[in-house]
């Protein structure tokens, strides 16, 4: 039985597998295709992960995505924030220690972002992080 030499092919295939394995990212980054972040040259990934992050995503139309559910108005976010605050209290944490990560679409209205911050403040959140995409084209 004639058999070609398979060694180079298997070598290459394993190389490829190793490449993709190294690059794969299992971290559940809460990204959503509906939100396109604005770019900023200063947006560098944080060195350490935030302790109590709560991600709010603001779409272009002004709806908010929290934990996978879309809330159509900012005012409708209250029960969710209250829930987050209760969860934090059960863990004996203050809402002021949690960080609210705001991922807003680049064409969203700034006023909506301010409304979002305001409603979070009313629920006791104090730390905010405005997320932006790293601008590499410089």
């Amino acid at each position: 039985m004639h058999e070609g030499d398979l060694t180079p092919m298997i070598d290459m295939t394993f190389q490829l597998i190793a490449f993709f394995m190294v690059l794969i990212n299992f971290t559940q980054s809460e990204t959503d295709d509906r939100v396109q972040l604005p770019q900023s040259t200063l947006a560098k990934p944080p060195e350490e992960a935030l302790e109590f992050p709560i991600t709010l995503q603001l779409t272009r139309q002004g709806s908010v995505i929290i934990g996978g559910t879309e809330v159509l108005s900012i005012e409708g976010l209250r029960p969710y924030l209250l829930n987050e605050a209760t969860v934090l209290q059960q863990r004996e944490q203050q809402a002021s220690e949690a960080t609210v990560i705001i991922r807003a679409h680049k064409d969203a209205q700034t006023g909506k972002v301010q409304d979002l911050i305001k409603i979070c403040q009313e629920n006791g959140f104090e730390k905010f992080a405005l997320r932006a995409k790293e601008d590499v084209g410089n």
Partner: protein
Amino acid sequence: MKIRRSTSSGKDTIELQMTPMIDIVFQLLVFFIMTFKIVSLEGDFNIQMPLASQDEGLPDENDLLPPMRLTLTANDDGQISGISLNDRTFTSFPELHDYIASRVGDAGPSGSEDAEVELDCDYHLRYEYAIKAVTAVSGYVDRDTDEIVRLVEKIRFTPPRENAEATD
């Protein structure tokens, strides 16, 4: 593939079944290719905004720099139409950045900690421009060392305009 023994003749060779292995290897390869996603790096601008600071608090007497109020106005389309810091107007974000850099730099090394900028944006301004403004005032990337030099670290937003009239 044949395993050859250098000493013995080619008589007692062991045939390795390659087909199952290659099957599995290709399965793995396909899995990793399918799940591969280029994640663009993201970073945060941290802002501290407790509710109490919403009302115009008394300026801290230790402040070397009075809080700067950056006003961004927008046209109907949401594009930026005006940038002004206190009473000075700027035509572009780089210009604003240079001014901030010179002003904060003058205040000494502690300048970046004391300086405070309050953003007052039109409600319908596109968020992109707010981030550009935050970028312009919060620092720059040093071209030589590729490190971020911080300028203004305290950044706040004014209360939203539609709900609360700006108090001057």
